[in-house]
């Protein structure tokens, strides 16, 4: 989809929404070529718009962003945000001081994001109507915002704390601008977290974690079991909250890039790519094609090694040592490719704003091509033997089923959504980087579009379908890498000497970047990590080299609630398998 057609679509939607909610919309404008921003007059009006977008335009809630805009001195500084709008400055009135709340929706058919903004002008006791009753997936966002900003969603049935634990002082909201990052907090247990109680004869509780056997991150699981059957599971996360979003506000754009790579160690490419794209979209700077190609290759390599690791983990968790050791060998091979091409086994330090830091040389590209073909063969054989190991398949089938309805309701994405037959893939729905040039549906060598949809509809949402989705995605990623690498090599062959110094050309200094950015401008950046869509939102400050607000929403955040549903009516010994088949990140969640 080209920019022009999207522009046209957006203007269609713009007039549609504007006509329908004429009174309640203050401004409606588009920016960053696919974001349609709707500024409403008050939160209640915003709710109506939200419901309209959710119900009638069939959009998904992808994130909710709260920003503390109480202390922005000169509203006129924000004009950058509205530079596309016709009657610009005169609308900047005082009522825009306060907390502003953005609901971001994405249209999965057309490449459009709707950002519904409402400003909560009551600074002392900021509240807004909750949308949970209508859009269940908002529940975690609302709880998070209430913890971090003290902005309360009225009507949210779950008023417990989500992010902040019991030791944190009451009425201290870390993401508010008046919270000093250097402030030392006296931790004291002053609250008691109330777990859901399941009562009845023969029901026991099993607490597991937060410290687990084996080297995994902390998370507390509370099972209510009847015999071996799990009646209910409640997860409690955020044991390693790192304060990334607050930390980012003290950083320059280039520093925050390093931070974004470290949000979740195994999604480094996806996260940093999303961050870079946010800045790039904001500044509307063009990126060299080769840079996008290298980003794509790295992103897909990351996807492959992580999926391989997950499959290996699933094998380990069912005690199938053969599968796990072979899968780990393949994973190691990919990681060695990573090291050869980028210098980092975990693919750190690939992206930079406006381009990439590393240039993959043709020799290495050939090597990647060779290796990846071998890996593909080995992988195919291995998958076949896994599929023929019925004790393995038997464990997967019917384990941890999630329904299509749950996925849609709770807004899960990535593998978790696709395993239940919901076709959400940021690479396809909102193509970015080099994916725009790849015909993703036909590159899926094994499946054409129609049979892909048939396959999709047959998926049951159990561990087996998650396994199958991962297998298909690994093959798909290998295809993408092969295609991209050959594209680069073809181009190199055509004009050998002209492009030899890509690297020097590519450098984009922050001075030049600065000229592209306007104060208080913001943009969405998104990428599809192996877990699913990772959604970043960056707002630069008055000094355009500094970050005003950096909101990160990784796929894990959306997918954690699903695991509670998935384990119900399964038996306790199957939980590790279900958990592994979800492959969720604690670190990517506990930002």
């Amino acid at each position, binding site marked *: 989809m080209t920019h022009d057609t999207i522009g046209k679509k957006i203007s269609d939607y713009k007039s549609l929404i504007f006509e329908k909610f004429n009174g309640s919309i203050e401004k409606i404008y588009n920016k960053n070529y696919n974001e349609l921003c709707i500024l409403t007059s008050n939160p209640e009006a915003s709710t109506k718009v939200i419901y309209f977008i959710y119900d009638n335009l069939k959009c998904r809630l992808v994130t909710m962003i709260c920003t503390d805009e109480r202390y922005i001195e000169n509203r006129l500084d924000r004009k950058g945000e509205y530079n596309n709008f016709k009657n610009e400055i005169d609308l900047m009135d005082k009522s825009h001081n306060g907390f502003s709340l953005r609901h971001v929706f994405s249209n999965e058919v057309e490449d459009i994001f709707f950002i519904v903004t409402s400003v909560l002008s009551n600074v002392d006791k900021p509240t807004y109507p909750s949308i949970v009753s209508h859009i269940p997936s908002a529940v975690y966002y609302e709880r998070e915002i209430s913890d971090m900003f003290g902005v309360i969603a009225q009507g949210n049935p779950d008023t417990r704390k989500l992010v902040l634990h019991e030791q944190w002082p009451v009425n201290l909201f870390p993401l508010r601008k008046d919270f000093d990052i250097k402030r030392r907090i006296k931790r004291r247990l002053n609250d008691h977290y109330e777990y859901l109680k399941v009562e009845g004869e023969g029901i026991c509780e099993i607490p597991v974690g937060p410290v687990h056997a084996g080297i995994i991150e902390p998370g507390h699981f509370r099972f209510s079991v009847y015999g*071996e059957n799990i009646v209910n599971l409640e997860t409690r996360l955020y044991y390693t909250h790192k304060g990334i979003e607050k930390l980012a506000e003290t950083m320059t754009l280039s520093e925050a890039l390093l931070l974004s790579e470290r949000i979740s160690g195994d999604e480094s490419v996806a996260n940093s790519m999303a961050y870079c794209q946010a800045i790039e979209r904001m500044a509307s700077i063009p990126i060299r094609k080769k840079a996008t190609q290298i980003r794509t290759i790295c992103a897909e390599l990351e996807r492959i090694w992580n999926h391989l690791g997950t499959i290996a983990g699933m094998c380990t968790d069912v005690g199938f040592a*053969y599968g796990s050791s072979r899968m780990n060998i393949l994973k190691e091979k990919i990681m060695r490719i990573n090291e050869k091409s980028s210098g980092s086994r975990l693919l750190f330090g690939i992206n930079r704003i406006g381009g990439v830091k590393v240039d993959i040389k043709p020799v290495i590209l050939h090597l990647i091509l060779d290796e990846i073909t071998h890996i593909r063969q080995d992988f195919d054989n291995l998958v076949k033997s896994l599929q023929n190991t019925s004790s393995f398949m038997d464990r997967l089938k019917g384990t941890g089923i999630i329904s299509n309805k749950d996925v849609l309701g709770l807004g899960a994405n990535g593998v978790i959504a696709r395993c239940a037959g919901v076709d959400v893939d940021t690479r396809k729905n909102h193509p970015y980087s080099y994916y725009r040039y790849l015909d993703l549906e036909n590159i899926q060598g094994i499946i054409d579009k129609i049979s892909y949809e048939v396959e999709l509809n047959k998926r049951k949402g159990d561990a087996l379908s998650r396994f199958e989705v991962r297998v298909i995605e690994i093959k798909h990623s290998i295809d993408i890498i092969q295609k991209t690498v050959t594209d680069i090599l073809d181009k190199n062959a055509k004009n050998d000497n002209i492009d030899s110094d890509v690297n020097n050309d590519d450098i984009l200094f922050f001075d030049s970047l600065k000229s592209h950015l306007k104060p208080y401008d913001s943009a969405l950046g998104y990428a599809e990590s192996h877990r699913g869509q990772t959604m970043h939102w960056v707002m630069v400050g008055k000094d355009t080299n500094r970050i005003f607000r950096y909101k990160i929403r990784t796929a894990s955040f959306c997918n954690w609630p699903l695991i509670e549903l998935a384990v119900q009516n399964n038996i306790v010994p199957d939980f590790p398998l279900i958990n592994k088949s979800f492959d969720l990140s604690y670190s990517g969640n506990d930002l």
Partner: protein
Amino acid sequence: MPIETSASVSDILIGFIQFMIIIILAPLLTGIMRKIKAITQKRIGSSIFQTYFDILKLMKKNEVISQEVSWIFRFSPWIIFSSTLVVAFFIPIFVVYSPFGLGGDIILVIGLFGLSRFFLMLAGLDVSSAFGGIGVSREMMISSLIEPALFLALFTVAVTYGSTNVEIIMSHTAESSILISASLLFSLFGFFIIVMAETGKIPFDNPATHLELTMVHEAMVLEFSGKSLALIELSQSIKQLLLMSLLINFFIPWGLSTSFSISEMIVGLLVFLLKMVSLGILIAYIETKVAKWRLFRIPDLIFLSLASGLMGIIFLFI
């Protein structure tokens, strides 16, 4: 040819040597099986003597005992260990002679194993941790099926050779023809499944897992530390060796020495070790090739053992 009961000093010495061999070799067998598993998984794996090091290390360590536990928790490792040791006295491994020969009844052997399992389960319940309880309930589910299957399998053997005394059975098997009859084949098959289940091998239990939620045997042992853990590990190894040697000597008795001549005994010992290692390789291979079964399908496998044992009995009376 039953061996005369009037045992001379040398006889007792030989019996004692057998006993010592069992105690000493048991951890080695565990080590070898771990090594084989590692090799099949393309790992280097730890040394085959690692189990000894582990036990020695554990012996030196202090115990951490929960305040909630009663005397059962403290004593059960000793009870488990000593009951396993007593079984070790009953079962001849390469010479058909055991010091406590006459007392060595198969039913007593099963009973002693049952005793040790009982105390392990008590200890698991005693610590009142959630995992201990889970492990115990699973163990109870499995063992309630294993024991009838074990009885059925050994019943066929006992009837075939006309005795329940381990030593007498072995003295018969040592002379029986190489080709075992169909009924014994069935009970061999059933017994093999039971050995896998009793020693916590992979379709039943995964001893190498770190996931508390999936454990069976390990979950009960979770709270033990130091010497107690060492004792339990050692008795587990010994139990494994004893069960496997029962299997070998009942069903594949070739090369079992019946007299006390030195040459025959050496041959017997070597053949025994060879058979033991090959059985270990077989089990390790199965462990690599199969994933752990879903908990509620495990009874299916034990039912297979039961059915096999029943068929053995049918064949016995044809």
